[in-house]
């Protein structure tokens, strides 16, 4: 007989894992709300959340109530949504393009977003109508459409999509640099730099109302196609021979990752590293099957991003580091460790 049967699996172990990871995420979010320049005890945090959610009337200072609800909780939830969406997008693209270096920005999305952002921030496009975020979102979508059209025109294989993405990214990055060097003053240039490295400052509830549903819907769509992604293991023809409508799956999933990424980038800037590396870390933990890999990527991405946000706020007193710096600075060594632990026997 073969291996333990997959029917029953060890469903209780999986359930326990899912419950545990949500507890870990909840704990990380509570930490993110409690830690900061003004330390707030976990108990106060719980009371403040309960006051808003369940209409309880615990006595709290209005400052504490405000910090917990209006600033830190919204920020932590957005970090979690962005982390989940970026890691999910990376996992999907690595499977679809069969390339371990694929990441959410491979389709030119962050480059387009940055061009859109500087066009609004520096050139003043759509002054008074477009916010920085909408400008970035429009830039991201324009870049994605251009890259997709180029990839389709060039024959549409995985390698063509990646090459078209490289061309698109280079073009939009050059445009961004052109605008910054010709039109920006020093202060604006610094602002752009900060935005490009990713920042959760200034995040409020309306941003969460956009980001959280985007991440959840993206997750639902990708889970629906988890088995189709497995079928891509041996390439496009192998997937088609297993009955996968390859083009339809590709278009839907590329579109879903593009929208997820564009939404996150336009709110928090292009935070690197998460989308590239978290899926690999998740793969080491749960294996390559997408039914497990996608949820694992999403939850690890969320926890990692919330943790990175905490670090970015406390590592230097009185100053907030761009979160993209933290994700790479702490993520890269952590990933090196995973890579080393999971090395193949030679």
């Amino acid at each position, binding site marked *: 007989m073969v*291996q333990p049967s997959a029917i029953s699996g060890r469903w209780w172990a999986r359930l326990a894992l899912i419950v545990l990871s949500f507890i870990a995420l909840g704990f990380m979010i509570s930490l993110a709300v409690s830690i900061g320049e003004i330390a707030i005890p976990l108990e106060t945090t719980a009371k403040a959340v309960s006051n808003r959610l369940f209409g309880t009337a615990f006595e709290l200072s209005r400052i504490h109530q405000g910090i917990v609800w209006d600033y830190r909780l919204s920020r932590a939830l957005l970090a979690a949504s962005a982390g989940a969406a970026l890691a999910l997008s990376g996992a999907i693209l690595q499977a679809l393009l069969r390339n371990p270096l694929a990441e959410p920005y491979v389709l030119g999305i962050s480059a387009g977003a940055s061009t859109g952002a500087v066009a609004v921030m520096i050139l003043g496009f759509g002054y008074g109508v477009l916010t920085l975020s909408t400008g970035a979102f429009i830039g991201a979508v324009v870049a994605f459409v251009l890259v997709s059209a180029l990839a389709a025109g060039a024959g549409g294989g995985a390698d063509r999509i990646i090459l078209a993405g490289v061309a698109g990214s280079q073009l939009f990055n050059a445009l961004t640099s052109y605008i910054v060097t010709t039109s920006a003053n020093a202060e604006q240039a610094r602002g752009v730099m900060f935005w490009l490295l990713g920042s959760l400052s200034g995040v409020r509830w309306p941003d969460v109302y956009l980001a959280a549903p985007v991440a959840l819907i993206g997750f639902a769509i990708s889970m629906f196609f*988890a*088995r189709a992604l497995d079928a891509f293991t041996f390439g496009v023809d192998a997937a088609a021979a297993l*009955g996968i409508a390859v083009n339809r799956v590709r278009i839907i999933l590329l579109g879903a990752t593009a929208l997820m990424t564009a939404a996150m980038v336009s709110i928090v800037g292009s935070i690197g590293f998460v989308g590239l590396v978290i899926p690999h870390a998740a793969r080491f933990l749960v*294996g390559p099957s997408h039914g497990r890999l996608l949820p694992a990527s999403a939850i690890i991405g969320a926890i990692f991003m919330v943790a990175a946000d905490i670090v970015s706020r406390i590592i230097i007193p009185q100053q907030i580091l761009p979160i993209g710096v933290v994700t790479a600075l702490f993520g890269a060594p952590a990933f090196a460790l995973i890579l080393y632990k999971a090395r193949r026997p030679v």
Partner: protein
Amino acid sequence: MSISINDVHWSAGGVMIVNGICIDVAAGKTLGLLGPNGSGKSSLLKLICRLRNVKSGVIALGKTDIAGMARLDIARRVALVEQQATTEAQVTVLDVVRLGRTPHRGPLAPWSAVDDKAVNDALDHVGLPERAGQFWHTLSGGERQRVHIARALAQTPSELLLDEPTNHLDIQHQLEILSLVAKLPVTSIIALHDLNLAAMFCDNLAVLHHGKVVAAGTPEEVLTEDLIANVFGVRVYIERSAHHGRQHVHYRLD
């Protein structure tokens, strides 16, 4: 179910790769597809499971034109073993064989006892049941090929297409795989290079040359010294084997 290929054309990059091919394979029979490199064997196999669409002509499974079938319905009946398909993913033998159940499962349907049985039977057929947990990248070329065949069998096909399935296999496994395929109660088409193995295991042969069928029939009818000289450009001496009674090809160097 029978496979019938009627006047099929297909071109790529302005070059006619498949140029008016007509072949019929009766239900349950095994057809060997012979021909030099680039004669259109792989392309024809891809057309039969509609990985490519014919430019003109009709390919039918039984009486059903595949052009009108849903991709999923084709995959439930026709399994393809490609040449040298590999992956960088850290998948196990079991992961790969389970892929064969993809067309039979809905996107959210749980794994069933039927799926389990198909996978276990397939692993038994290729003699790899105790290797199920082994990682793909630790397998030899021959083992990978057998895993692909197990994956195809897990699809529980009624038509099986194999593109040079014995490449990379040692002679023992070549014989095992081909006798397995010949015994399966499915209609199969096997692209092969080894003329002697083709004669031993196939009910019928078709020889392709420049995208056309230049000979078709039983091994006795097809494998002649003239044909092999014309198509492959080598001189041979053919006799009926005293041991297995099939055609046997001796290559001549003089």
